[in-house]
């Protein structure tokens, strides 16, 4: 295997995980836009999606497709509940105590998942069988294609939702100016709850499509959530396009680093890259003007 096909392999693997980071980062951005808090339970939505899908598939014996749908809807509902808890105290609390609420929620979800589904990892079957595809000496598993496709669909869906539907536009108005949105008769609280629900559902989708590759376990969410957060910051918090770019860049760089430099420092490379980018561009690659207002 020559170096070019090795590099191609790293890039392909990088895009696969990067797509997941992108979906999670998008979830972060959705909530950040709505309430300006960072939801550190986002990774747990990913985990809940994956675990629920496995559980429904095994326990209820429904087809994979139905299990996936059920999981997404349930996780969306859980997200809405968290949103309710957050807005309950939105006005009275500092952003930091809201973040701690999401940390508490994340610990809680992890505990519940551990209790319900055990401490071991669980497998989810791939969406389609078939052999790996070979591209110039690098291989691509069919599930990766599913991941690319579904991620692209999700991103398109979010874009259409925001740009083309009146509901999405209302939500964007809340993001831009909460007070103004309230004045024109938008129910801001409802929008916040919806933002949580949608980003939870997005996270669940991410968890479900990645589970056949990576397995599902009660503690899978923390690291995925952090990397997603990392991607969101890289792209610039609150920017949809930035979230996607951030996710892909992170995934590819991380795999290239692991492959070409050292796998021992795989995670370190991801964070070093993030730090360097932040030092050069303090508001992320695609964020608004720098925080330094002078």
């Amino acid at each position, binding site marked *: 295997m020559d170096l070019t096909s090795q590099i191609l392999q790293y890039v392909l693997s990088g895009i696969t995980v990067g797509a997941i980071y992108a979906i999670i980062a998008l979830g972060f951005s959705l909530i950040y836009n709505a309430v300006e808090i960072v939801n550190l339970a986002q990774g747990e939505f990913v985990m809940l999606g994956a675990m629920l899908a496995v559980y429904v598939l095994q326990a209820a014996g429904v087809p994979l497709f139905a299990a996936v749908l059920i999981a997404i809807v349930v996780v969306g509902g859980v997200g809405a509940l968290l949103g309710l808890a957050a807005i309950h105290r939105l006005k009275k*609390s500092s952003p930091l*105590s809201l973040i701690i609420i999401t940390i508490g929620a994340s610990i809680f979800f992890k505990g519940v998942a551990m209790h319900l589904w055990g401490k071991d990892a669980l497998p989810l079957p791939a969406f389609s069988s078939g052999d790996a595809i070979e591209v110039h000496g690098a291989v691509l598993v069919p599930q990766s294609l599913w991941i690319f496709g579904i991620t692209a669909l999700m991103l398109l869906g979010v874009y259409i939702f925001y740009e083309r539907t009146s509901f999405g536009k209302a939500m964007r108005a809340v993001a831009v100016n909460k007070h103004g949105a309230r004045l024109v008769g938008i129910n801001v609280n409802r929008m916040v709850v919806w933002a949580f629900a949608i980003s939870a559902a997005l996270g669940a989708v991410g968890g479900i499509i990645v589970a056949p590759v990576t397995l599902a376990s009660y503690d899978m969410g923390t690291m995925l959530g*952090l990397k997603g*957060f990392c991607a969101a910051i890289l792209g610039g918090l609150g920017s949809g396009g930035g979230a996607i770019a951030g996710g892909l860049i992170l995934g590819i760089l991380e795999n290239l680093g692991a492959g070409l430099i050292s796998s021992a420092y795989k995670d370190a490379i991801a964070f070093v890259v993030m730090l360097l980018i932040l030092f050069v561009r303090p508001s992320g690659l695609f964020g608004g003007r720098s925080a330094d207002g002078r």
Partner: protein
Amino acid sequence: MDARSQSPRYHFLAFPIVGALLAALPFALHNNYYIGVMVFIGIHTILALGLNLLMGYAGQVSLGHAAFYGIGAYTTAILTTMLKWPPWVGLACAPMVAGLAAYLIGMPTLKLKGHYLAMATLGFGMIVKILFVEYYPLTGGTSGMTGIPPLSLGKLQLVDDRQFYYVVWFFALMLIWVSYNIVESRVGRALRAVHTSEIAAASVGVDIAKYKIQVFVLSGVYSGLAGALYAHYIRFVNPDPFGFMFSIQLVVMVVVGGMASIWGAIAGASAITLLSQVLQRFEDYEVIVFGAILVLVMIYMPQGLTKSIVDLTARRRSAKPSKPEVLP
């Protein structure tokens, strides 16, 4: 004529009382387990104090503070086992190395704001933990380093829990005193000023960047000392205790205790440390219960324990508190 808030006098009354209570406590506890718990509360108090200065007074969030704790622990571990330096020297060097690390990291990161700063510190914490794991020749990798010597006073080795209790709380009380002095001084006022209005603080000449870095270094120093105390207490270090989850736990201690409150740091450190011990009985459920308690405390006491309790007693005293309007 002292026109400042009445708190200093109040504080200097509280200080000897708390000190005396802490000194007497081991005589009431005939059980090394409780002493051990108190030792960890002391170590966590030192950590929370430093982080509280940074978060509560300088308004900077750090999600990577466990790294400085780890740097402190590893510094003394390396100096005392590999170079055979005396434990007290290791203990003295640990905060310095951690402070230096904080300085180097703070210079570029403290230019960032809000969530970007949080993420940068988180990334830094991750990188440091990975270095602990991978830099095998120095750190012993994941298996860690054994054989760290105990602290000693003359010929007396401080290996007993009770002895160590006094060592830890000596440092903790000293740092409470130091933190209090800083908060109630020109520097503390400048920090509080930055927190209320950066633009106004700059208009009276407060060099915001300088104070941010100073506090960051100071909290690094605190954490380094805590780490060194940990290392000489357990006498073994490995990377696991210095990861992301512990950084989060520290932030939780500060917020639950109450931001911008010296006593809040002790309250938070005690509450979280004790809670995790009390929850032992829930076995598999303890994680769920811990998460639920955290959410409920933050929903119903968003200001943290100390402030909420003070508010509660204040409300009882005067039926109708005059809620001052916050300035624009």
